[in-house]
């Protein structure tokens, strides 16, 4: 069980699918960002589980996982700053109502 690749890949698929559902049906910007984090975690888990089998010495996958984590941090920083600006400017974060540009 703990050594079978299928369980890791199934878990990462569940994380990615749940993140997709959240991005599609939730309209709160913060919750959409949380769902994007779930997707990124699923991708990293998938990459590292596959890395057990293909990479020589298991090193390259870890390096790329470090890059993914750093990029996720950068993305979250910018997205949170934008969400905070949206809060201050429009007083709401419903994605359905933020439908005009140049505000």
């Amino acid at each position, binding site marked *: 069980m703990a050594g079978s690749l299928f369980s890791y890949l199934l878990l990462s698929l569940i994380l990615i699918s749940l993140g997709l*559902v959240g991005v599609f049906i939730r309209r709160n910007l913060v919750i959409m960002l949380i769902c994007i984090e779930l997707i990124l975690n699923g991708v990293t888990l998938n990459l590292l589980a596959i890395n057990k089998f293909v990479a020589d010495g298991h090193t390259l996958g870890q390096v790329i996982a470090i890059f993914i984590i750093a990029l996720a941090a950068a993305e979250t920083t910018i997205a949170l700053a934008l969400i905070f600006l949206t809060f201050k400017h429009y007083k709401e974060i419903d994605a359905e109502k933020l439908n005009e540009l140049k505000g």
Partner: protein
Amino acid sequence: MFSDIVFIIFWLIIALSAVLAVFLQKPIYNALAMACSIFSVAGMYIFLGYEFIAALQVLVYVGAISVAIIFVIMLSPPVTVQPKKINIYKVLVGVATSFAFFIVFFALLYAKYFDAKFTIGEAKGTIMQVGYMLATKMAVPFEIISFILLVAIMGAIVLAKRED
């Protein structure tokens, strides 16, 4: 055998708290459920034998990103939770699309990877090799990533401090 039990517990915690992170109604609960899920994903990395990535996951995701999200939720003015009308058509389309995605990739995984096994906990790529690769072969991407982080920090400060 014992590791299997721990593995199943971690697996269920990740899946259930991911469900909670998507479907709960108040953003602070979603953020906490996401932190729980991500923390348990670090446990999965321990099972795979990548302790360094697990530590990094806890430090960066749970320690920085979750806290930043919770900060933004707490700093923002209270949004009145209006009884919202749910557009049932959009919800159905979103759920159907994600379910189709799940089914297609589940069939693929079941066909290709159902029997693949590895020994848990063996770590061939140690932290020394990872650092060596970051300093030699991956030096240029590493510098680019650090530059991106710097730009992201400055951009976040510039965006959030702007008076309008």
